[in-house]
């Protein structure tokens, strides 16, 4: 029983990491209509930015801020330079998915000669273990949970209470109508790429910090988990992605406690497939913040 309680505590950390990444990914899709398969590579690129700063003597928290900034700028430029021209030419959804897959491969292969293939670690003392019953987490893990909670609340506030958030929701619901109503949709989309890029960059550093050591190949691993959480919650739904993150994070940890850890992701993705069979639109489709009234 103690192991399951401990696994629950670890699940809190896992779901926090996944939530930061999945909310950014799903907002990007929900508002810009772009399934960005390069998301995982932007995450890992940001993790390496933080790594090199950390190696240069900066704390990981400075690296995290730099990673978020890098992710924002990188994502913004990716859209402006690569994705937007294709979209202007009327490239289909499937075509854009292929474009983003190509971008993902290009980033990974450009990064490989710079960072190498082998795992690296941040030089960061995770702090002493804080115990609460069978749950034992480090200071850094509590900080990661805290960052996720603050960011989720901030995303909620952004979408619900700010003019930008309302403009995002309008653009997501019907971009043509939003433009006709005087909403500067291009600037809104730029803002979305900056915000979700920052979430992506931050998520990359947080995931790398949480993993203790990471390598270039982790970009693809991150993407699969993020996609799973986003799809499970309902594609394009930030609150759905949060729920998806909770489920994926918890199931992976609890199943590692219950069965052979070799199969923990198999169990998590098995449940994802089951949900998709029973509810193909995901858990929160048409009920989330970005959905059109339906």
């Amino acid at each position, binding site marked *: 029983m*103690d*192991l399951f309680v*401990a*696994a629950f505590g*670890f699940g809190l*950390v*896992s779901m926090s*990491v996944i939530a930061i990444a999945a909310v950014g990914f799903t907002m990007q899709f929900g508002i810009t209509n772009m399934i960005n398969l390069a998301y995982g590579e932007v995450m890992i690129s940001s993790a390496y930015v933080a790594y090199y700063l950390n190696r240069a003597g900066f704390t990981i928290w400075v690296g995290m801020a730099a990673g978020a900034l890098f992710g924002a700028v990188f994502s913004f430029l990716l859209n402006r330079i690569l994705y937007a021209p294709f979209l202007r030419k009327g490239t289909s959804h499937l075509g854009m998915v292929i474009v983003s897959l190509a971008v993902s491969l290009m980033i990974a292969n450009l990064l490989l000669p710079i960072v190498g*293939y*082998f*795992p*690296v*670690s941040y*030089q960061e003392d*995770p702090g*002493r*273990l804080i115990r609460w019953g069978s749950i*034992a987490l*480090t200071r850094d893990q509590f900080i990661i949970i805290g960052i996720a909670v603050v960011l989720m609340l901030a995303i909620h506030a952004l979408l619900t209470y700010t003019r930008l958030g309302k403009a995002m929701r309008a653009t997501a619901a019907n971009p043509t109508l939003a433009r006709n109503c005087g909403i500067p949709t291009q600037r809104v989309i730029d803002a979305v790429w900056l915000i979700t890029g920052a979430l992506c960059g931050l998520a990359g550093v947080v*995931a790398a910090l*949480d*993993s*203790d*050591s*990471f*390598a270039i*190949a*982790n970009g693809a*691993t*991150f993407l699969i*988990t993020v996609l799973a959480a986003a799809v499970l919650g309902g594609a394009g739904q930030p609150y759905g992605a949060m729920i998806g993150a909770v489920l994926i994070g918890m199931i992976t*940890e*609890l199943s*590692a*406690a219950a069965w*052979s*850890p*070799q*199969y*923990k*992701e198999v169990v998590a993705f098995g449940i994802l497939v089951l949900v998709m069979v029973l509810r193909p639109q995901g858990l929160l489709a048409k009920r989330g913040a970005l959905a059109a009234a339906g």
Partner: protein
Amino acid sequence: MPSRFVFAVGAVLLLAACGGSTPTGNGLGTGALTVGVIAPFTGADAGLGPAYYAACLPAALSINNNGGVGGRMLSCSKFDTRGEPADAVPAANQMVASTSGLMAAIGCTSDEASTVVPIIDRAHIPMFCMTGQSEFNKTPLKYFHRLVPADVYDAYAMVGSALFGPGHAPYKRAALVFGGDIGSQAFVQPATNAFTKLGGTIAINQPIQLGAPSYRTEVQAMLASHPDVIFTEALGSAGTYLKEVKTQNNGQMIPFIGSSATIDPEWFQQVRDAISLNDLLKYYAGVDLGYTFSGAAYTEFLTNLNASASQFADAPKYKQRGSTLHLYDGIIMTALAMVATNSSDPTVYNPKIIDIANGTSGAMVVNTYKDGVAALKAGKSIRFEGAGGQNNFNQWNNSQSGYILVGYDKDGGEVTTGQLTPDQTSRIFAAGGS
């Protein structure tokens, strides 16, 4: 007229298909020669491919700097198996089908050996494989060669380190933390058999998914089983796993014993960065084949390895990687077999490799390619003792040698810490069922 045209086109196609470096059957032929390095360069076991590539480059330099193989220059080509049988098959087919002058293949790790070895054997290409799988202990495949013992012996050596190693009382409770891949799982059963029959207890057997972002729950379960030692080979994920052991165990490491694959510069760096140099030096013990890292053969290897840095910057890091030394020797022996038989036909020079390695009666011992070629030209038979030491192939092309107990120094160099006595070795073998 049309029949002449068809004949002419057919003849041209036939010549084109043959390429420019066709073995003549008599003589060493012309054109470049290639050694295919077929191994994981990406994926969870991506650390293996570079170690093997680092074997090929100095071997090519050693051969090319001494006139090549009958004037034919040697180069190395990488074929990435990703450590997955499904990816390895097309890689092996591509290597066999599209590489001109393919004289040998090296690599073929446990991850992919079962699928690629038959393909390479059917193509009649001599290969030197770094697989420890028991299915190759008595293989009928004539082109397969193995210069390292089967994994079962690596596992026995780890058990020996736990029970008879220096500086500690015999460990009684072991956690088995091996990657879920084919290669790593090969250690589990022999280690379990030998350790339990000699009085130990397996506290937990934990196959882990390599490349996972974290192992918190796995580590918690492992710690809850209260082991006093961890047996491990989890390449690529060792840093993550061991850092979590230290974190969840209140900053204290548990002694851990690694397979011979953990004697690797990338593994050292990864684990050092994760748990600190002091803890790595204090708590790690490994096993390896008994290398001297000295002598004429090793000096030649080291000189050419350092010179290979212009092609592969990390090559010099592999100066004490056992598999790098052995595969280097394998390529040199193959080249010498070609010279000895004066043939570039693998069906002719392949059987000669064993003669070169084991030596025949009255054979002259040589340590370098240059000396080997000189001796052969002087009409002598030779025995090649290379950077990895003496070879003794049995009838199934397996060369066996003994293990030593090792650790690391602060720079990542291998340090011998002990040796198992013949009595200890035979007790472990008997317990393990060998």
